[in-house]
């Protein structure tokens, strides 16, 4: 892994990204923007005083066609950029830690780790109709220090992920604690 060095004996268990449905909702604004040039002539024709302006959007004319091409090119490129950010944001579960990789925007990347040995509690949260139907939820990993939380938003099948995390959380040795 380029992002972080694996410790001796450590291996990657799972890569997790946000649920695909959340990615589709992120794409929705770009889809609406792309459709605007096709919708405007139809909307203008519905309002008689404005109907004459619909001729501006005759895409068989070179100028309007160039405008449409540029508009769609920018919409597509922005949507593809959103997919790039979606793909580069991920959580990596290893046998020893959870790594949170945040790609906020281009040239802004944050990589943080939480060692499983520090985890005291793992909570899943699935709320809402669509998240319940599609299995989308949040996982909150709490450490002994109450102020440190590790939250994974919008991940698929959070219960399975929680079980997987707990499987790799090392059990405390009673002798080490003196009990």
């Amino acid at each position, binding site marked *: 892994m380029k992002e972080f060095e694996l410790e001796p004996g450590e291996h990657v268990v799972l890569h997790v990204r946000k649920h695909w449905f959340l990615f589709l909702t992120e794409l929705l604004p770009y889809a609406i923007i792309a459709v605007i040039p096709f919708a405007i002539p139809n909307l203008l024709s519905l309002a008689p005083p404005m109907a004459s302006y619909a001729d501006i959007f005759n895409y068989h004319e070179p100028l309007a066609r*160039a405008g*449409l*091409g*540029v508009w769609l090119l920018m919409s597509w*490129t922005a949507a593809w950029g959103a997919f790039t950010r979606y793909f580069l944001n991920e959580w990596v579960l290893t046998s020893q830690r959870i790594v949170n990789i945040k790609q906020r925007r*281009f040239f802004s*990347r944050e990589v943080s780790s939480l060692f499983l040995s520090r985890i005291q509690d793992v909570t899943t949260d699935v709320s809402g109709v669509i998240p319940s139907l599609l299995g989308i939820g949040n996982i909150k990993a709490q450490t002994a220090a109450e102020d440190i939380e590790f939250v994974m938003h919008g991940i698929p099948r959070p219960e399975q992920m929680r079980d997987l995390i707990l499987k790799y959380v090392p059990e405390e040795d009673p002798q080490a604690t003196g009990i």
Partner: protein
Amino acid sequence: MTDQPLQPFAPPAFFESGMYGSALGNRLFSTGAVVIGILLVVFIIWAVYTLVAVYHWFKYSNASWIIFPAVAAHFFISFALMAYALSGNAFFLMSYLP
């Protein structure tokens, strides 16, 4: 010194073709030249954005195979849309565009 009389300054043909008389003076550029200029600026912005995004894909995707279809799809669709803007021929996207 040549014995030829001085000739009046003649602007390049590119400028000449776009000059029309108007009340305020001559227009320097034709509409076509302005459109080409705008398209050029948009394509340069696209190229820089694409370069940055592809750099991030290669640097941070951890050698995932998705990088190749993702980048290829971006180039194919973008070039088709550029061709549509320039010539009206969007190749495989033609059935979806007016």
